[in-house]
């Protein structure tokens, strides 16, 4: 251990389990419980300074810190991958401040903190999915006034969400929104699913896992409890559809998953592979083969 590392260990040792003090955790848990009681409703909370800047998942980190216990096993993904800088730094943060086990295997995690994806492996009862949310307010696009959006939620005045979809169709011939595609939760609150691809929207519907959303800068927490109805907004003559991919994953051959384009060399070579790296690796370990591996 270098001198610098020793110093850091000491600083961290002076913090409480999972960094936040117990009073702050209780405050966040109350917000989470309220969010679970009113699915899709944005609950204000007193977001704390975290040892990372806003935009690096401070909302999700605070939610995870408030719910994590010594027996939990944590997985952290960013765009579906466990090994991006952001995912690694959040995972290390919790390793240092809680000592809990971490994993990259979706099925083995009790808490999964995520940015931009829902894992391909179906979640199970008892698991918690924690989303990092930059902008929690789906009405913000057309109504910048906070007092007005609050009233619109209270009175279920959601016509403006369809104005957004109307504009999409008028301009592109189809609903071109592919990320942060608005949903209605339990027939009541219109909610932003965070910048996940709309491909993942159907996974939110009646998911057996608890889905929690934390927006640090905007100081909002919301929740989708297990088995909750989550419906993507659409028009009768332009129904909601998920992205379709022309080919399966080049590495594992999976056909029903969300793919990322990857540049393979400096001569313009490219391929499409699973954005969920754990899912792809697991399939390859099981012997599934894509055309690149053939």
């Amino acid at each position: 251990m270098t001198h610098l590392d020793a110093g850091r260990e000491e600083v961290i040792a002076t913090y409480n389990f999972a960094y936040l003090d117990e009073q702050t955790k209780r405050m966040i848990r109350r917000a989470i419980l309220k969010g679970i009681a009113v699915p899709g409703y944005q609950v204000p909370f007193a977001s704390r300074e975290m040892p990372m800047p806003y935009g690096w998942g401070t909302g999700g980190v605070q939610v995870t810190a408030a719910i994590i216990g010594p027996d939990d096993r944590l997985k952290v993904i960013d765009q579906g991958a466990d090994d991006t800088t952001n995912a690694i730094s959040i995972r290390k943060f919790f390793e240092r401040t809680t000592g809990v086990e971490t994993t990259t295997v979706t099925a083995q995690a009790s808490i999964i903190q995520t940015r931009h994806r829902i894992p391909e492996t179906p979640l199970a009862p008892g698991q918690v999915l924690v989303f990092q949310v930059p902008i929690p307010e789906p009405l913000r696009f057309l109504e910048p006034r906070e007092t007005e959006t609050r009233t619109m939620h209270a009175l279920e005045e959601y016509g403006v969400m369809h104005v957004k979809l109307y504009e999409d169709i008028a301009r592109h011939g189809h609903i071109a929104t592919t990320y942060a595609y608005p949903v209605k939760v339990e027939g009541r609150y219109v909610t932003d699913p965070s910048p996940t691809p709309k491909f993942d929207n159907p996974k939110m519907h009646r998911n057996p896992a608890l889905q929690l959303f934390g927006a640090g800068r905007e100081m909002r927490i919301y929740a989708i409890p297990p088995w909750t109805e989550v419906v993507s907004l659409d028009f009768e003559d332009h129904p909601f559809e998920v992205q379709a991919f022309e080919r399966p994953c080049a590495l594992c051959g999976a056909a029903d998953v969300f793919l990322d384009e990857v540049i393979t060399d400096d001569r313009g070579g490219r391929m499409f592979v699973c954005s969920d790296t754990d899912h792809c690796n697991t399939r390859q370990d099981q012997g599934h083969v894509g055309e690149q591996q053939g």
Partner: protein
Amino acid sequence: MTMQDNDPPLMRVSKLSHMYGDRIGCRDVSFDLYPGEVLAVVGESGSGKTTLLNCVSARLQSSAGTISYRMRDGRMQDLNALSEAERRFLMRTDWGFVHQNPADGLRMNVSAGANVGERLMAVGQRHYGRIRETADDWLGRVEIGHDRIDDRPGTFSGGMRQRLQIARNLVTGPRLVFMDEPTGGLDVSVQARLLDLLRGLVDDLGLSAIVVTHDLAVARLLSQRMMVMKDGQVIETGLTDRVLDDPQAPYTQLLVSSILQV
């Protein structure tokens, strides 16, 4: 006018006053508005006409007096007793509000079609094709070219924006439209065309309207009845032609003579 004898009033305003602290906005205003009637409220700036408009359109809670409105089911409803949800529902279905500055009544960051279609979506229409068809029809009725349906209002002239605002308000078939200086800020030739259009729509649709204006020509062209306001009070009221041709109050005489000199 004989409609007063047959139909009950659409709106009944009684002893309405509004104070801004110690300052009087409007005082002791009473009138009935009948179905299909256009009432012009005329006065100079500071006369209280805009305060009155904001009170009777439930955008401002009046300090005293009552405003009753005949709901679609026929019962008279005290507007101050409406819940926030009922008030907002009324505003986007049975009422329209045309602002002097179209930017205050339009969404400038979405297309003309979406501006007209918004109220339809707000009341639950979920068929894109039909919403667009209705929006297109309304753009035609306010003389905006069909090829402009996907353009944003920012690319429109002042007169077109005002016509778009009118279409956006009328698409749900409101029975009552409030207008605040609807031709203000437009060139004279554009004003004339807009007034013709408004008069045609009001006639075709059998609309009731309360139009606030400082322009006696607007009152003459659009309204059957007018009220003249000064210092927060109504100083003269009557059939528009009578008031303009034979004003009784000295202040109204002054107003009328001032435009005749031009």
